[in-house]
């Protein structure tokens, strides 16, 4: 295992090492930060690290989309909602509804990780045959975006169209969910008396 990573070029090893640290540190920050805003910023760090790893594996289009959609749209949406509902709510971590649940969760998670690594190590990380060469003239070096575009708009065109339907449904659903509820009937109190 170690000779393999030493056989890689210096730049590749350095990039991978730095990004791995960034990704894992960001993930730890998401879990451990008290303030949800800090969690969101740590999430951005992890997403950037993953984007760089995409570039390192020649998935240039996906790296760009990762930054634009995830870091640009999804995290901003998270921050909007955090601001909307207030950042001053401190999570009460002192009381545990289920005793020992946190410790049990951490232990089970680590055991799962060990099991996955052990299984992959004992039976091979990557199995399966390489795909046939992508369509095009042999020997011609094709751009990642071109390959991806060809695959999506020929082989996966139906899934692509269904995706547009999904997005429309999501937009309509978000609008319906975010609408103010109709005024309650006269004489009827809210169950908990909270109106915001």
């Amino acid at each position: 295992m170690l000779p393999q990573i030493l056989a890689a070029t210096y730049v590749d090893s350095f990039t991978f090492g730095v990004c791995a640290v960034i990704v894992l540190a960001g993930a730890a920050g998401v879990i451990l930060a008290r303030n949800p805003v800090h969690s969101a910023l740590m999430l951005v760090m992890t997403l950037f690290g993953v984007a760089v790893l995409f570039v390192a594996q020649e998935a240039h289009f996906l790296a760009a989309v990762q930054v634009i959609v995830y870091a640009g749209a999804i995290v901003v949406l998270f921050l909007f909602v955090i601001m909307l509902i207030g950042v001053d709510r401190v999570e009460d971590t002192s009381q545990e509804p289920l005793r020992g649940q946190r410790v049990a969760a951490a232990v089970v998670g680590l055991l799962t990780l060990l099991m996955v690594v052990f299984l992959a190590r004992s039976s091979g990380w990557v199995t399966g045959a390489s795909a046939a060469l992508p369509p095009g003239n042999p020997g011609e070096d094709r751009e990642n975006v071109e390959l991806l575009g060809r695959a999506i708009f020929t082989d996966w065109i139906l899934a692509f169209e269904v995706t547009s339907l999904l997005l429309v449904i999501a937009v309509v659903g978000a609008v319906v969910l975010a609408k103010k509820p109709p005024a309650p009937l006269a004489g009827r109190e809210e169950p908990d008396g909270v109106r915001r």
Partner: protein
Amino acid sequence: MSIAPEWYLALAAGLFTMGAIGLLIRRNVLVMFMCVELMLNAVNLTFVTFARTLDDINGQVAVFFVLVVAAAEVVVGLGIIVAIFRRRADATADDLHLLKG
């Protein structure tokens, strides 16, 4: 020669584990949502790794669709969270055990 795929897969497994642990130990609904995003990213990383290793662009196509579904999921999920917060003042998942509005 570039980094062996095993390293990427191990990193993705670690990232997925951290997301799963975070989902289990946190009580804030928003942070739990972010942990789901971490797990999605870990799976995306494995997809891209396999796409490179097996020289198959379809792995990247899968990541593309995962990204779209994740975006839609976040929109609807945050809409639900906002709708819940409008009615209740509390931020933790334990207080949402009643299924009536």
